[in-house]
C-alpha cells in the first residue's frame, strides 16, 4: 500500500465509527472446517461489513508438508474474517471467523487467549473435521458450544447421538442453526453467552 497517498485510505463509514465512550471490547471466535459457514455467520450478525485481518506465520521447522513450500523458512499469510457488534456505548463485541488451515489457528497470538468463548460450527456430512479443534479448545480451557449448520443434504442425527459421537458432557450446548439467517446466528451467540453465564454461576467447565 502506498502510504504517501494515505489521505485516501478508506476507513470506517461515518455511521460505523465507534463513539468516543467505547472503553473496551470482547471477542468470540468461530471455528470449524472449510465451507461450514464461518464467514456467512460473521457476515449475518455483524453490524459492519465484515473485514479481513491477516498475520504472517513463519515456517521455522522441518517436516511440514509441501503445500507451504519446501524452503527451510517460508512466510505464510493467514487471513481472518471478522465482524463487530456494538453492545453498549462502552462495550463492543468482535467475532472472528478462523481461516482454513487449522494448524494456524492456535498459533495466532492472542486469538483464543482472552476470547470469552468459541462457537464450533459443524457440518454433519463431515463431523470429524471438527474433532481436532474441539480437543484443542478443551486443552486450552476455552469454553465452547457446538452449532450444527444444517445443510439440506446433510445427515440429521438426534442431539443425543451427536453428543455421544462428539464425546461432549451434558452441560455443553448443541444447537442447530442456519447461519445465513441473522436471528439464527444471533441465537447461537446467545446460547454461548448463556452457557458462559451458567459457568460463571457454577464456577466450572465440567
Amino acid at each position, binding site marked *: 500500500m502506498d502510504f504517501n497517498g494515505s489521505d485516501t485510505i478508506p476507513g470506517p463509514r461515518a455511521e460505523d465509527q465507534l463513539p468516543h465512550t467505547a472503553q473496551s471490547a*470482547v471477542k468470540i471466535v468461530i471455528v470449524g472446517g472449510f465451507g461450514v459457514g464461518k464467514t456467512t455467520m460473521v457476515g449475518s450478525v455483524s453490524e459492519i461489513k465484515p473485514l479481513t485481518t491477516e498475520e504472517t506465520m513463519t515456517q521455522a521447522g522441518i517436516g511440514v508438508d509441501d503445500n507451504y513450500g519446501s524452503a527451510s523458512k517460508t512466510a505464510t499469510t493467514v487471513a481472518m474474517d471478522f465482524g463487530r457488534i456494538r453492545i453498549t456505548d462502552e462495550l463492543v463485541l468482535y467475532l472472528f471467523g478462523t481461516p482454513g488451515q487449522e494448524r494456524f489457528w492456535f498459533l495466532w497470538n492472542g486469538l483464543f487467549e482472552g476470547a470469552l468463548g468459541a462457537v464450533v460450527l459443524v457440518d454433519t456430512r463431515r463431523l470429524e473435521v471438527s474433532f481436532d479443534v474441539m480437543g484443542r479448545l478443551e486443552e486450552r480451557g476455552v469454553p465452547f458450544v457446538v452449532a450444527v449448520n444444517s445443510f439440506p443434504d446433510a445427515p440429521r442425527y438426534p442431539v443425543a447421538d451427536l453428543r455421544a*459421537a462428539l464425546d461432549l458432557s451434558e452441560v455443553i450446548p448443541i444447537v442447530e442453526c442456519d447461519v445465513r439467517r441473522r436471528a439464527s446466528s444471533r441465537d447461537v451467540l446467545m446460547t454461548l453467552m448463556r452457557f458462559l*453465564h451458567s459457568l460463571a454461576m457454577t464456577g466450572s467447565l465440567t
Partner: protein
Amino acid sequence: MTPPQRQRRTPGQGTPAQPAAPARKEGEGGNPERLYVVAGPDGERADIDLVTLIVARSPDLPPSATPEQAALLRLCVAPLSVAELSAYLSLPFSVVTVLITELLTAELVQARSPIVRKALPDRSLLEAVMHGLQRL
C-alpha cells in the same frame, strides 16, 4: 447411520497454553504442532490484542509522523480495534502492533485494553452482551 466418534481431551493435555508466544528463533526445538510462529520483530511486541481499541490523542497530525503513522492516526480519530486498523491499512497484525507501539511511546495514541476471559467469568459483563445481542 452412525456418526464418527471423537474422544474428549482435558485442560493441560497436549500443547500447553502459550499466551503471546514470541517468534521462535530458527533451530529451536519444540513439538510439531508449533512449526509456525508469528513473525514479530524482536521483542517489539507490546501487549496488544486484536481487539485492543486504539484512539488518537489529538486530531492533529504531528509533522514528524511517518506516512504509515499518519495513516493510522487518521483512522483512529474515533476508537478502532487493532484488527480493524490491520484491515483498513492492509497490514499484518504484527506489523500494526509495532506501529501502535511506536505511537504509544510517542504518546500520540491511547490503547484501551479488552476484557479478557477469566477463570470465573464476569456475570454482569455476560449479561450486558446478552442484552446487546437481543437488540440485533
